[in-house]
């Protein structure tokens, strides 16, 4: 057992928190890109592509993230790919985020009134133009609250990556606890730091909603 001051503990935890933020950003950007592609596929090919997308989403939403992490971490080496904890966590979280965001955004696109599709079609706009100029801008505003809400969930979900050895905030907390035998203090600080990262996101959500305006 070693003795550390509160500031030393916080300092160590904050250094690890950067990795949590990095992993969250990678997962959100990667998942978001995947979700956009899935979204277009769903609407452009209502029969073939949309069914595949649905299976993918149901699979990813129906299994625990922890197990998805394990499958990626232990499964990728079987395919001959060298796996670092960061890579495994990133791949698993991108797949996970992609599935959830695709479903959230589908709901938002469906919420745009059908008349918008009809009016834009009647003017001769093709599918891509309809999505780009008419549907997605309206879906965007609807999408802000659930998307930011999911981003908060995602940031907290990165805590699971500690299980596969990724040096995120949670793992740092475990390391310090094992050294100082002060679990309540340490994990309390970990929770505070997670809150400090998540709270600005919710503020951002309200700001974005106001900025995008209401019709």
């Amino acid at each position, binding site marked *: 057992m070693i003795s550390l001051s509160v500031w030393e503990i916080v300092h160590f935890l904050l250094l690890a928190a950067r990795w949590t933020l990095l992993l969250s950003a990678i997962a959100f950007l990667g998942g978001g890109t995947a979700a956009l592609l899935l979204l277009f596929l769903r609407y452009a090919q209502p029969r073939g592509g949309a069914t595949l997308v649905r299976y993918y989403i149901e699979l990813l939403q129906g299994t625990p993230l922890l197990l998805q992490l394990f499958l990626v971490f232990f499964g990728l080496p079987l395919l001959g790919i060298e796996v670092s904890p960061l890579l495994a966590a990133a791949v698993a979280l991108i797949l996970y985020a992609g599935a959830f965001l695709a479903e959230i955004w589908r709901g938002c696109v469906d919420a745009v009134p059908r008349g918008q599709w009809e*009016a834009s079609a009647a*003017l001769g706009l093709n599918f891509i133009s309809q999505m780009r*100029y008419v549907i997605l801008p*309206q879906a965007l505003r609807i999408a802000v609250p659930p998307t930011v809400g999911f981003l908060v969930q995602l940031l907290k979900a990165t805590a699971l990556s500690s299980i596969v050895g990724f040096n995120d905030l949670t793992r740092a907390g475990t390391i310090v606890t094992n050294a100082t035998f002060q679990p309540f203090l340490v994990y309390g600080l970990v929770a505070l730091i997670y809150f400090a990262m998540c709270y600005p996101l919710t503020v951002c959500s309200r700001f974005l909603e106001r900025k995008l305006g209401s019709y």
Partner: protein
Amino acid sequence: MHPQTTLQSADAAPPMVELRKVSKWYGPFQALKDVSLSVRKGERMIICGPSGSGKSTAIRCVNRLEQHQEGQIFVEGIELTPEFKDIERIRREVGMVFQQFNLFPHLTVLQNLTLAPQRVRKMSRKQAEDLAMRYLSRVRISEQAQKYPSQLSGGQQQRVAIARALCMEPQIMLFDEPTSALDPEMIKEVLDVMVELAEAHMTMICVTHEMGFARTVADTMVFMDHGRIVEVAPPEAFFSNPQNERTKLFLSQLLAH
């Protein structure tokens, strides 16, 4: 007069829009039964009938917002077969005005009008804006160009919607109950715009309950009921001497109040 089912005579120009024995089902329900119509260039056709008679479905098949299962539809001589892919080409020439206006709420009035000319006809922004301002003054609403649809009254929104359709400079205009969602005091301003359009001999097919308007502009009145065309006649004959019992009943109910 019997419903038109034959082609125009050989010396006349081909019809702008032609439906030949068109049938359409929604699942087990048959919405259109053997519908045949022919609209010449510059003809103003008014379709009336009770709710559920298939009038909206019929015109929505013309720009393929609905797809027919039997029969043939020709727009400017081009047949809308099930395999026909280039539907945007048809839609560029056929403008549509909806009962619910369907303006784009996130765009200003001007942007609503310039979107399609820029993205579909590939006009520059300046060209599109000049075009839009011309049509906005034509519907007498140019001072609202920078407003958003939510800031306009229903009558103003529908006039914007008409201008938006006109900006694509279509050959044919379809109106799907354009005044049915409007408060009574706003109906006139929209009908005035439509009358002007009709007097300029825009080829138009209009589904409406506004019989006063119909009497003023129609070349041909069509009465539909339960998915079928029941009667087709010029307005004088249609209103003063309807042939079919169902037509008589409908007109008496409509003109009673």
